[in-house]
């Protein structure tokens, strides 16, 4: 029997590759650094172009599941998938279909098979928490850095005895035939772009942070509220190209920010009763049929300002004055807003350099570049090494899925 395939990252791309391979009879080991699968997609309230999650497509409905736990049935039912959460790959040696990977597997404080998510432990100690009701595996998590007096009580009272605070991390060395890098992206925290004052006022957020505010299972139950005082946010301004197309940060266009800003602008005006939504842009890039979001936004009364932000001046703890230069009008406009949303660049995740260096891969602006650009096999990063999703650069969900399926296809062809 062939060695399993190692998949790094359990977001949309990684899990798609894992499920497709597993369903085709290939053993997979999925290494995820966080306590739950789903990656950035877990935080999206609605993903374009379907305005829902990819795996809730009609075509995928044969797999029972609810929104945001699209992989649940695969993870529970599919014996060919070995998911390691709280884990990371320390080292990969070997080549050409014969790799040895050393995996640091985080301590299993909570036995996910036993945990019933009753929440009792969370009442006793703040070290326990539930990342999301839709988290996968379905279990609470434990953070040893927050350990306190209540821990012992939680262990004793746990009705299913699912907690083991003596759990230790372990090192596992596995032989794998292929490596799939699906480490995703990170949304830049624009603290250094000082003209936008991010981090200096609670009502200045990024688009991903706005998505969490809009999420019905989030902290505000999906209500559009000002982080500062929890009062409704009626006036919202978004600004595009924060750190993208900017030689001082990231030279590339992050590709999906225009569309998700428009998507959010539409949600705000159609579903959240925002009275004033403005988008400050230098170009709106709604490629392909995504142009419909732009048209819809204009119909919804979203104000588009062609220009750049001159200054952000907090009026008080809750409101911000934003002065914008409108280059079409050649005038300065002042807006008073409750929420200022930055469409921040999508950047390579931490540790990407190490993976690229240690495997000797090509690099493009910090992301993985194809081994052979002219071959048009964009998912092939090396000999038996593949990349998919935003590990290759900013991408939308369907693109990530398509790439993941291309990876699965390549691996299956090689095994014939």
């Amino acid at each position, binding site marked *: 029997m062939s060695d399993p395939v190692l998949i790094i990252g359990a977001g949309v791309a990684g899990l798609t590759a894992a499920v497709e391979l597993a369903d085709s009879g290939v053993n997979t080991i999925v290494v995820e650094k966080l306590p739950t699968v789903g990656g950035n997609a877990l935080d999206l309230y609605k993903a374009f172009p379907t305005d829902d999650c990819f795996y809730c497509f009609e075509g995928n409905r044969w797999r029972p599941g609810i929104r945001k736990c699209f992989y649940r049935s695969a993870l529970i039912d599919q014996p060919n998938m070995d998911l390691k959460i709280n884990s990371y790959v320390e080292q990969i040696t070997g080549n050409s279909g014969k790799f040895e990977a050393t995996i640091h597997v985080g301590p299993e404080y909570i036995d996910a098979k036993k945990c019933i998510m009753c929440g009792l432990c969370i009442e006793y100690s703040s070290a326990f928490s539930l990342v999301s009701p839709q988290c996968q595996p379905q279990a609470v998590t434990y953070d040893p850095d927050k350990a306190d007096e209540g821990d012992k009580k939680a262990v004793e009272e746990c009705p299913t005895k699912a907690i083991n605070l003596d759990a230790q991390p372990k090192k596992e060395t596995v032989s794998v035939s292929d490596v799939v890098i699906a480490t995703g992206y990170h949304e830049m925290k624009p603290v250094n772009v*000082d003209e936008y004052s991010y981090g*200096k006022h609670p009502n200045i957020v990024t688009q991903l942070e706005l998505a969490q505010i809009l999420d019905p299972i989030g902290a505000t139950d999906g209500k559009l509220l000002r982080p500062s005082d929890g009062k409704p946010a009626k006036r919202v301004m978004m600004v595009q190209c924060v750190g993208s197309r900017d030689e001082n940060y990231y030279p590339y266009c992050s590709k999906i920010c225009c569309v998700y800003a428009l998507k959010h602008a539409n949600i705000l005006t159609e579903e959240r009763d925002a009275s004033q939504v403005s988008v400050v842009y230098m170009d709106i890039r709604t490629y392909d049929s995504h142009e419909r979001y732009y048209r819809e936004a204009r119909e919804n009364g979203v104000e588009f300002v062609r220009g750049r932000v001159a*200054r952000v*001046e907090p009026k008080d703890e809750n409101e911000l004055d934003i002065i914008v230069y409108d280059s079409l009008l050649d005038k300065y406009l002042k807006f008073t807003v409750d929420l200022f949303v930055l469409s921040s660049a999508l950047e390579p995740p931490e540790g990407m350099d190490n993976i690229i260096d240690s495997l000797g891969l090509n690099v493009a602006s910090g992301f993985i570049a194809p081994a052979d650009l002219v071959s048009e096999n964009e998912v092939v990063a090396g000999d038996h090494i593949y990349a998919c999703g935003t590990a290759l650069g900013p991408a939308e969900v369907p693109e990530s899925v398509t790439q993941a399926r291309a990876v699965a296809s390549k691996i299956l062809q090689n095994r014939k």
Partner: protein
Amino acid sequence: MPSYNLYMGCSVPANYPNYEAAMLKVAKELGMELEYMEGVACCGSPNLRAIDFMGWLTVNARTIAIAEKNGHDIVTPCNGCFASLKDVYHHLKHDDAHKKQVNAVLKKEGLEFKGISKPRHFVEALYSDIGIEEIQKKITKPLDGVGIAIHYGCHVLRPKDVTEFSPEIYQELVKVTGATVIDYPLWKQCCGATVLPVNEELAIRLARDKLKSMTEAGAVFATVACPACGNQLDLQQLGLKESYGEEYNLPVLLYPQILGLAMGMDEDDVGLSMNRVPAGSIIEHLTE
């Protein structure tokens, strides 16, 4: 004990002897050896750069070349001088043709620009070479947390790839004296000094906006580390009553004055009486 070539420029000696003296005293206490450079004159200012790029390159390259005779870095208390010297240093390091051209002129004096002695602002040298920890040890009369707004000055902050200066440097230096740094919306804005010769009204307006922004944010004092910025914020304040009907009464101190006082010097040591807007009230904020 770090040694430096001290480049005074023309404005500090002529207009701000209190700045010069306070800087020398503070430096001595902290073990910085500052030696006045021999045979140097003006940096030419951005005005010379605007009309006579080669002349500006050459005079500043000459200053750097003189410093390179002993190899020590150059420090200056003036943002304008710093900008000229550092910009020329940066440019000549990246432009061989201009370097050759300039060196051909300097050769007549037996000088050569090599790019060894780095031009630095006094406050940056204080921060990087002495360090907050060592400065802290010398603070005997810390300020009582009184709010001070920093006017950094455009020419130390930007262009960052040339100046290599960050606002944190100045913030840390103010905090170590016991003061609180006041954030104000117009912290990045220019004092207006550069347009003073071509549009005085505009220059004064810029200074006024800055003072208004600082005061409204709750600053009790302001600090600068540049004679031109000092001129705009301190001296011009006196005329605002007439031009704008506004009085800010915001004392503007040169940074070494604040540091000197917190290190236990008295007001005469730092020439407090020479500040245009009376600054004596800072004494009340010193603690034992």
